[in-house]
């Protein structure tokens, strides 16, 4: 039988996370710090709205671009948080998680050979989705000494005459880095000069611990060249509901809607109704969760300080990204031994790109009690490594 598989797909590596997952799941009583989703359940009033929707028999497709009432709520949410106005009929599409938005955006924009600039360490989907769409990935290796921010110089150095899209993943998974107004303004200048388009993945926008999140789309001249991606997974603890959205220029949304229409039809209806409730009445829940995450973040950073472990202070998402270079182990060796010897799972930084080498992603989407036990074990582990 001949090989029926696509070369393009077979050449793509499976996610490094997956590999580590297989090792962890064999370990029975391990504490995991490896999860990229909130530990909170979806707030009850949002879940109840979902239940209510089932009861009312809202079990049909919605329009391709999503419920009108949801698009209107999204529009008003972005207006009140970022001050940008998106037309709910033409400039917003509701997707199956932020991840679908990333995929269809890349597919809607890339012609074969177009270069997509991807700063790493970052979320695992960008490069594979771009490759699948025929893009050529240009990786920028972000640096610890810049607190994993993307600098204008780094961007400039990556630009060629084939550059088309820049992916801007802030607040960042896995580093927890954020970019503030000042950082983004410097970047915007280079972006406009070089006529790039931005896919701004702002899925962690509600989880920042140093003032409010600032979107690059708000900078003058950027709105027309930015696709803003966000969703309900992280802010409202709704990962399993699979709901995200994208806001951007009408011509791009129109093309994305075609792909979405043929591949997906529409995002889950029940989730969409629940999301309306989330946007209408969920601010307080978000604030509470944010405060909890912030406390845990401070706890972890303080623990690292006590252990003498190097870690820049991240102000976003729910990850810390300590440096483990001093131990002379690769990230993967460190993570594997940490798991085997102390039964704590943390994801090696390399799962998010080569520049994650020497780092570890530790998620604080866990209760303080759990984090305390994990930090005790980490202390033991590190002390042992230092002695040997």
């Amino acid at each position, binding site marked *: 039988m001949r090989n029926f598989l696509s070369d393009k797909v077979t050449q793509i590596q499976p*996610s490094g996370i997956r590999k580590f997952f297989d090792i962890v799941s064999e370990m029975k009583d391990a504490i995991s710090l490896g*999860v990229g989703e909130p*530990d909170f359940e979806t707030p009850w009033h949002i879940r109840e709205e979902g239940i209510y929707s089932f009861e009312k028999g809202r079990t049909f497709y919605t329009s391709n671009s999503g419920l009108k009432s949801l698009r209107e709520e999204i529009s008003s949410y972005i207006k009140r948080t970022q001050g940008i106005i998106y037309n709910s009929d033409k400039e917003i599409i509701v997707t199956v998680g932020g991840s679908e938005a990333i995929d269809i955006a890349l597919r809607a924009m890339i012609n074969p050979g177009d270069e997509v600039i991807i700063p790493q360490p970052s979320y695992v989907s960008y490069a594979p989705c771009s490759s699948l769409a025929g893009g050529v990935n240009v990786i920028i290796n972000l640096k610890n000494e810049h607190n994993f921010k993307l600098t204008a110089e780094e961007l400039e150095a990556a630009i060629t005459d084939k550059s088309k899209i820049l992916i801007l993943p802030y607040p960042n998974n896995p580093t927890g880095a954020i970019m503030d107004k000042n950082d983004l303004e410097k970047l915007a200048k280079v972006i406009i000069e070089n006529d790039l388009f931005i896919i701004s993945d702002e899925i962690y926008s509600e989880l920042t611990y140093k003032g409010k999140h600032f979107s690059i789309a708000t900078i003058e001249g950027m709105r027309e060249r930015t696709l803003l991606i966000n969703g309900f997974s992280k802010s409202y603890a709704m990962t399993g509901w699979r709901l995200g959205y994208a806001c951007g220029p009408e011509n791009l949304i129109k093309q994305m809607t075609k792909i979405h229409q043929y591949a997906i039809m529409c995002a889950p209806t029940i989730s969409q109704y629940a999301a309306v409730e989330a946007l209408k009445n969920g601010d307080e829940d978000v604030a509470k969760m944010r*405060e909890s995450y912030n406390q845990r973040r401070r706890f972890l950073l303080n623990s690292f300080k006590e252990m003498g472990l190097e870690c820049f202070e991240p102000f976003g998402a729910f990850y810390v990204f300590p440096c483990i270079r001093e131990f002379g182990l690769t990230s993967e060796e460190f993570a594997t031994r940490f798991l085997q010897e102390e039964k704590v799972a943390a994801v090696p930084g390399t799962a998010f790109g080569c520049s994650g080498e020497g780092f570890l992603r530790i998620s604080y989407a866990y209760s303080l009690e759990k984090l305390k036990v994990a930090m005790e074990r980490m202390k033991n582990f590190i002390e042992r490594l230092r002695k040997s």
Partner: protein
Amino acid sequence: MREQLLSLIEKNSRIGISELAVLLGKEEIDVEKENKKLEEERVICGYHTLIDWEKTSIEKVSAIIEVRVTLQRGQGFDKIAQRIYNYPEVKSVYLISGGFDLMVTLEEKSLKEIAAFVSDKLSTLDNVLSTGTHFVLKRYKEHGTILDEEKEDSREVVTP
């Protein structure tokens, strides 16, 4: 810091000052001062333990009592409430709106004792017009905590 400190210790009063300082991102000395101030101002009125007595061998019976009262010159609700809350078996007293005036919760060793309290002590007060006693059959949630909840982490162990 005040509100954050309070909401943090509302659910767990056993967190020590040094840990509170880390969690709130403040200096220990400032947290200690603020905590002391909150105690002095009686914003913090006590540190209690939430116990599910059902799971122990100690028998406890609780009742919620609706009390309707009549006011007399020079004697407002506060005065009557005070007469009632001074009994140690009274766990809480609220002045409420609606069909009756005071809501009293009682905790005793037996049904009989509660009945005795209502008929001998509460109903005989001059200001009390009538009472309605409701016995508590089961406690599900107290002080925002679900008593019989077992939380397990049903997430995948590692996700991107």
